[in-house]
């Protein structure tokens, strides 16, 4: 049997090194054009990949996730901002899950 606190220590140190090394070792602005362009696109691609289809897999009924996804896309397109978009998505799922429960 292993010690749970030693497990937590191992996890903490490993994850911290992964996160902090590039951030502290690369302290200068990168001049290479390909690298700069690549790093410019990384955040948008990462966020898009993480959002879909994960969002429709997160809800009890996939359809509530799909509709919340569409609501989120439209609300963000209209520049409603982080908070309003998020709340709208949550409310959409809540309403849809109630409807699905009622239908069944």
């Amino acid at each position, binding site marked *: 049997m292993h010690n749970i606190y030693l497990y937590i220590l191992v996890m903490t140190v*490993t994850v911290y090194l992964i996160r902090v090394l590039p951030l502290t070792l690369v*302290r200068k602005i990168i001049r290479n054009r390909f690298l700069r362009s690549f790093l410019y696109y990384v955040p948008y691609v990462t966020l898009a990949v993480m959002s*879909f289809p*994960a969002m429709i897999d997160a809800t009890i009924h996939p359809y509530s996730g799909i509709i919340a996804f569409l609501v989120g896309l439209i609300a963000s397109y209209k520049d409603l901002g982080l908070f309003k978009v998020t709340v709208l998505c949550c409310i959409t799922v*809540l309403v849809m899950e109630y409807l699905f429960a009622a239908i069944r």
Partner: protein
Amino acid sequence: MNGFRTGLKHAIPIGLGYFAVAFSLGIIASNAGITAFQGFLTSLLVNASAGENAAFIAIKENASYLQMILIMIVSNIRYVLMSFALSQKMDPRMPLIHRLVLGFFLTDEYFALEIAQDGYVDPVYMYGAICFASPCWALGTAFGILMGNVLPLNIVSALSVALYGMFMAIFVPACKKNRIITLLVLLSFACSFLLSRFTSLSESHITIVLTLLIASLGAIIAPVEDEDA
């Protein structure tokens, strides 16, 4: 409004989402025999949803410490890319201590807040966000362990989309300004869907593979000018 308070406010959706995700994580942790305090401590120190999920399962299976290290590397390797990208959003003249602290709190959600800012990251703004959302993450885990089955399932379901709503609020407005980003985002959706449905790759591996491929494609077909990046 000062940076700290703006950060607090912007972290409300993150905190809600964190609480929900951590709550379901707590249910997994309690199955591995982890106490509420141990779960609280883990979430406070590790700050990783997929990583903690894999770790709790490993603890349940009595994995070795070496296995634990490998599991943490595999499930968190995407943070290397984010950390690299974030290094370019930090003022080179900023004291090192801020990088050490913000690195500790580099999660998908904080990363999203950081790249949404114009120009360099304001550490004080991030500390505001962290002060609100990180306790939600740790407390959510503890509550999940203590009372996993109390919160109604549809509430948990609704809260669990909060994070994705926040992500969309960041990358969709960027699409309006830049056609190439629109193209890359649509390609990301399609590839992510195909890989998740037709391969056995885990979510974090899909994130790494597609980020490398699609962001490289963007850099090849549309390299940015100096003022863009």
